[in-house]
């Protein structure tokens, strides 16, 4: 970071400004919404931001076909409805969808495996954008590749739309385990680890020295209850994305509020018991095991 006097004049879209936006989301719950009415419910429930998408992952899964960025008119409606940040999903590698979302005024872009990938080889060059990006990752090398491309925030790639938290836990455990591994390596060993895992070497050194990812790290995918959200905080996530879990629940408002409260009280079982009682029943879900490999979303864009 530069000395104060070296800053020059006003600058937008710097790494500091993009990563700073992600830092403001910490300890918060970001909720998937498909229209203005849902966005209002999410904001009233205490969401720190909403994620605009065409259909929640559980519906995308059922419906099949090509999943694309949300309809721009819906995005604008959502932006007009709420005062909290509005994020939007673009397809992996779809530079133009991301540009359109930025032009619409979306505050953060999720280059998401939940949508049908536009490019099998390359992700968006996120460093070119003024807006910050969040990307999914199942492990440390994948996270560091996304950060190297300019992602300002990382989230787990739990199997979306299932209501099964199993894969989000798996990804977060893998991430933390690999960070502990590289912390214990010396300089040459870290270089070798970076080569063997296809991870950007400078970021391997940075993560090893920090003992964490150099950007904010959220949980996403399959989180359906206050207990799931608290579990991911217990696993050292900085905050929570909830997709189908809010509007797939019996009472979305109660579920939203309860998940927000559970994230604040994740380490207090007595409070969690009260909070979980008020939440109502969660989405029905589908266990991760029951999904054939070819229908899994998490393997997209590694």
């Amino acid at each position: 970071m530069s000395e104060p006097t070296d800053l020059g004049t006003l600058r937008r879209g710097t790494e500091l400004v993009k990563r700073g936006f992600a830092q403001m989301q910490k300890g918060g719950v970001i909720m998937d919404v498909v229209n203005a009415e849902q966005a209002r419910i999410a904001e009233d429930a205490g969401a720190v931001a909403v994620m605009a998408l065409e259909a929640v992952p559980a519906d995308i899964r059922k419906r099949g076909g090509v999943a694309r960025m949300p309809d721009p008119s819906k995005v604008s409606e959502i932006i007009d409805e709420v005062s909290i940040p509005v994020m939007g999903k673009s397809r992996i590698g779809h530079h133009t969808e991301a540009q359109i979302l930025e032009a619409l005024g979306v505050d953060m872009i999720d280059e998401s495996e939940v949508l049908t990938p536009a490019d099998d080889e390359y992700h968006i060059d996120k460093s070119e954008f003024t807006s910050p990006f969040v990307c999914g990752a199942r492990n440390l090398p994948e996270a560091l590749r996304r950060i190297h491309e300019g992602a300002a925030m990382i989230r787990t790639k739990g199997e979306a739309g299932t209501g099964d938290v199993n894969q989000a836990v798996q990804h977060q455990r893998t991430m933390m385990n690999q960070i502990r591994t590289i912390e214990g390596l010396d300089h040459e060993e870290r270089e070798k680890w970076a080569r063997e895992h296809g991870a950007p070497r400078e970021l391997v050194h940075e993560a090893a020295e920090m003992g964490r990812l150099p950007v904010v790290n959220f949980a996403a995918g399959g989180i359906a209850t206050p207990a799931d959200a608290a579990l991911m905080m217990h696993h050292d996530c900085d905050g929570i994305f909830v997709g189908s879990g809010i509007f797939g629940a019996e009472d979305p408002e109660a579920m939203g509020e309860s998940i927000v409260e559970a994230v604040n009280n994740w380490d207090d079982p007595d409070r969690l018991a009260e909070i979980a009682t008020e939440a109502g029943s969660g989405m029905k879900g589908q266990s991760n095991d029951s999904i054939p490999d070819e229908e899994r979303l998490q393997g997209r864009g590694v």
Partner: protein
Amino acid sequence: MIAGVIAVQGDVSEHAAAIRRAAAAHDADCEVREIRTSGIVPDCDVLLMPGGESTTISRLLADEGIDDEIRAHVEAGNPILATCAGLIVAARDAKDDRVSTLGLLDVTVDRNAFGRQKDSFEAPLDIEGLDEPFPAVFIRAPLIDTVGDDVEVLADWEGNPVGVRQGPVVASSFHPELTPDTRLHQLAFFDETEAVVPTEVDG
């Protein structure tokens, strides 16, 4: 000194690190406590209210019963530094019924006054009491609209106040906790004439 960081949501660890650095610059002992429930504020000598989402923060402060404790802390003349969302929550009025403000500061604020995230920026800022410009980071920042007679304006952006002080309360639209420069934390909690420009970058 016991420094309490309001930790219901937002960039809590950044403020915790900043107050530790500011205290170290003054050779002061500093124990940091994160506040997510009631009962901790009364033990704290100073408080920090971080950036984040003011709707979420104000709601959780009320749910957890921390709001009245913060008011009592300030009424007793104890210092608090509030940044961005913290400023909104500390204000008398945010002109938005989605945020319950604490009325610690006699100001009204406009939320998201600079526009959306793509309009967020960093820029050097002159602050009253500091010799060199401050590296100010504005993220979906609020502007202070009106200030009461007892409020001292410490900094302005194109004529609108972005840094203020009223008694023990210091507040900013920008995020001093995002850079290694701890001068605003020093100004809030230590004798400002001794504010030390950081020579070491550890952020």
